[in-house]
């Protein structure tokens, strides 16, 4: 097969590309330039968008012995990932930009272009397994990335290749060292790659400006002020800036964000528990869209725990009833449905409620 290996400059994608070559494929390495001004993402250097990362990727491609190019996806990335990220926060939701990037960039813009240019598949360094068209968790539970890939459709998965799913991160690093790849001990990337210093609130404030409003309790009484509701996430406890303690003296958490009213609702920890979830824009990659209720396990955030659940379709949405309550479920995150370690599908969390029975 002709395989396009997306190479971020990190150890995973380098080893993935090397394995694709070893499997006998005709591999070309491509680094995605995601910033219109690479220097702007340079500080902190934790992401995958710096000039140094591009150079690391190029050097890895040299060592592996494959052609290497840089594709400029900066405009698409800005529009489909960065602006979406900002808009989601502005709408009171908590987006996962890695998911968005897989959905809109890696397995859409890049895959489409690769197929048109004569490639058969796109190979990435994601820690997930792809077997007979089914997406499964990595054997390395701590590094598993099936959650952020669950937005990829079956058609797209048919042209995807994840050579690392059967290995632990430690094995990948050791293999990189054995192959003479200098990125073997490069630190893992984490946080949001386009928020260079990790200061998401500052990043949002720069783009959304000050938007002062009230912090209210569950009764609607004003208990404090905020500078912008977008800076809060469901379940957040620190940095609420509430002068007075709660009447019962127990810590308060963000329960809800209402962008229209520009209020942040806070309340006790127990009020964070939800067991009913509405998901929109469902993607079914591991099974046919279910006609009725199915039992599954659901994961509600990256690296989060799973919950037993019953899921059923409701028009173009899906509904989930968790078999035990989950705490602090943020709208905008993905609910990913699993059958064992197989990804069945995903949906974006649109609403959460607590049934009386809990």
């Amino acid at each position, binding site marked *: 097969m002709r395989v396009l290996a997306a190479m971020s400059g990190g150890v995973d994608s380098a080893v993935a590309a090397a394995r694709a070559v070893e499997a006998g494929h005709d591999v070309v390495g491509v680094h995605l*330039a995601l910033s219109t001004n690479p220097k702007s993402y340079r500080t902190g250097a934790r992401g995958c968008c710096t000039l140094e990362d*591009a150079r690391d990727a190029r050097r890895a491609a040299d060592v592996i012995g494959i*052609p290497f190019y840089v594709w400029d996806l900066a405009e698409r990335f800005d529009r489909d990932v960065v602006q979406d990220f900002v808009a989601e926060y502005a709408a009171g939701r908590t987006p996962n930009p890695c998911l968005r990037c897989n959905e809109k960039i890696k397995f859409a813009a890049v895959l489409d*272009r690769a197929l*048109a*240019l004569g490639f058969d598949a796109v190979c990435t360094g994601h820690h997930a397994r792809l077997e007979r068209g089914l997406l499964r968790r990595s054997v390395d539970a701590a590094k598993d990335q099936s959650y952020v890939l669950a937005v990829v459709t079956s058609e797209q998965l048919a042209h995807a290749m994840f050579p690392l799913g059967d290995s632990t991160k430690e094995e990948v690093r050791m293999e990189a060292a054995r192959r003479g790849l200098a990125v073997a001990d490069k630190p893992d990337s984490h946080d949001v790659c386009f928020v260079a210093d990790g200061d998401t609130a500052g990043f949002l404030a720069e783009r959304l400006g000050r938007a002062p409003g009230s912090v209210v309790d569950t009764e609607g009484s004003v208990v404090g002020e905020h500078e912008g509701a977008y800076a809060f996430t469901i379940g957040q406890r620190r940095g609420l800036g509430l002068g007075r303690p709660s009447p019962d003296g127990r810590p308060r958490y963000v329960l809800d964000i209402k962008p229209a009213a520009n209020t942040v609702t806070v309340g006790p920890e127990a009020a964070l528990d939800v067991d009913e979830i509405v998901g929109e824009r469902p993607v079914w990659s591991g099974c046919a869209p279910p006609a009725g209720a199915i039992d599954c396990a659901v994961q509600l955030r990256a690296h989060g725990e799973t919950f037993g659940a019953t899921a059923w379709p409701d028009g173009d949405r899906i509904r989930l009833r968790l078999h035990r309550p989950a705490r602090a479920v943020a709208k905008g995150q993905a609910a990913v449905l699993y059958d064992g370690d197989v990804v069945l599908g995903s949906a974006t969390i649109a609403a959460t409620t607590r049934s009386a029975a809990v």
Partner: protein
Amino acid sequence: MPYLDHAATTPMLPEAIDAMTAELGGAGNPSSLHASGRRARRAVEEAREQIAEALGARPSEVVFTSGGTEADNLAVKGIYWGRRAADPARRRILASAVEHHAVLDSVLWLAEHEGAEVEWIAVDGFGRVHPETLRAAIESDPGAVALVTVMWANNEVGTIQPIAELAATAHEYGIPFHTDAVQAVGQVPVDFAGSGVDAMTITGHKLGGPIGAGALLLAKGLDPVPVLHGGGQERDVRSGTLDSPGIVGLATAVHLAADRQSEHAEYLAGLRDDLISRLREVVPDAVLNGDAGPDPTHRLPGNAHFSFPGCEGDALLMLLDAKGVECSTGSACSAGVARPSHVLLAMGADVERARSSLRFSFGRTSTKADVDALIDVIGPAVERAKRAGVAAERGSD
């Protein structure tokens, strides 16, 4: 391997390799006073004389540098600083809109950090600067112009500038004139004194010499402020131990390039014209950029530059590379991201056309087989790149 990227770099001449290799084995710093130093000094000075003779300059006008970028930096910054020091009102820099980044970014740096006022001299649809355009730009405030810089021949589209006329225009106002002649030497007749320019950049690796050796030719009386400070070599204009092997290789190549220029140009033009006519047959909608006229003094003989409507240049380059055909999109930044060429944009092309272009350039080792190889694969590559372009557009809805 069909290599159609000689404008990026071209293989060294065997004579230059021999001369350079011999010098690599020699001992001595050209600035040392003992016999070894004298021997190296002699090699450097003979090289200087050889270059001066080949390019119509005096030996004392040759300042060796590490290549074209350094020579451009020295000329632009050094002349600007020197002229401004003599008269603080001189802050205007007039540069053509199609300069190489070595000039472009030096000028921009002066604007950002040294108070220079940059004016880009517009070009016509072929990428050519007209003397009257330059005159009009000077006229708005002649006394404030520090320097004018216009390249001899463009590295992307191959357009040759009317350098003598432009230099004469600048001189009417007493303004020094610099030209980057990196692409020109060896392909067109280049006479430093005859052209009237005050400063001229050359480099080795575009004409059969080594990478990392170049020179700035500086007319007597023009004293740029140095960029590199140190041991005071090159009459204090450019410090740094003289690279005698590189300089000897450079001089050998410049000498041969000038000597063989007319037959070389004829050979390259033959290949180039063959490529253009055959490429147009297999890709009828390809657009030749730059001066397509019959006058051989208007375009570099080794240059063919096309836009392929509906394609992205970098996709096309990748497809050709996969087939073993090597060419260039003409411009690349350090991260390797293709930006729409400022040259094409200055010539009036839109971003799409600028992004859809490829440069094919010939050199001494080029043969008809290189053209054959390109013609064999370019048709299907263009078709495929068009489909990829359509896919990209669809995805962006």
